[in-house]
């Protein structure tokens, strides 16, 4: 039964600013959905990602489901090339650490920043192989 807002105005501003910075500094377009997922969280997150429209391939969707304590990060096909799943998992881990102590805003802001930082790393074509 929905009642009340998830965030105060100030918290919303913080999140919006993090998203803007991610775009300005890394050209990474992140969208954050905070709410209960319908059905399987991963499937719902992918549905939300698709709903972002034509440029979904180059966008990232973050689903935060506090009711089910689930976090899903969905990266589009194009984004995936500069933001691999390991970087997404690292951001997810950092986000859930904040969520555990009840700070949704800080978790989201940190996660978006980490995703943006990971995406900014320039691609190295001739990388020395590390074994």
């Amino acid at each position, binding site marked *: *039964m*929905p*009642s*009340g*807002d*998830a*965030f*105060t105005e100030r918290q*919303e501003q913080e*999140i*919006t600013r993090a*998203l803007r910075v991610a775009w300005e500094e890394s050209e990474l*377009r*992140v*969208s*954050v*959905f*905070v*709410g*209960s997922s319908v059905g399987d*969280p991963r*499937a719902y*997150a*992918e*549905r*939300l990602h*698709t*709903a*972002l*429209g034509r440029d*979904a*391939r180059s966008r*990232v969707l973050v689903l935060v489901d*506090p*009711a089910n*304590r*689930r*976090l*899903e*990060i*969905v*990266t*589009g*096909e194009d984004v*995936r090339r500069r933001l*691999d*799943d390991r970087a*997404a*998992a690292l*951001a*997810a*881990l950092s*986000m*859930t*650490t904040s*969520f*555990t*102590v*009840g700070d*949704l805003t800080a978790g989201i802001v940190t996660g978006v920043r980490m995703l943006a930082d990971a995406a900014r790393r320039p691609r190295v074509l001739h990388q020395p192989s590390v074994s």
Partner: protein
Amino acid sequence: MRDLRVRARLAAVAGSLLLAVLLAAPALAATRDDGEEPGRGLSSGQALLIFIGVPLAVAVLLGLLTYLPSIARGPRYRPERTWTANPVWFGGPDDPEEALRLTSPEEIARTSRGGASAQW
């Protein structure tokens, strides 16, 4: 042995009662001085107001001072409580419901995606 213990206990109880009376002894010296004119006693309404109303008001005030900041800050997420807030979508489509309605399973299945899942 047991008898002794019972006696010690009785002595302690009696002693503490006696001590309380002894400590209150100065009250017995409260005789009326010359020229002292006590006013009328409190009515029961006034007594209730002063001895129950005032402490209650203080308690309510302290309670307000304690809870007001968190009330003003708005709802806060607590992992152990159920989530009841409205869904929010930052950077989402202008019309989320319409956009979600238009996504077909085929469209979702068409492209590959990456990312991560986590629980807390």
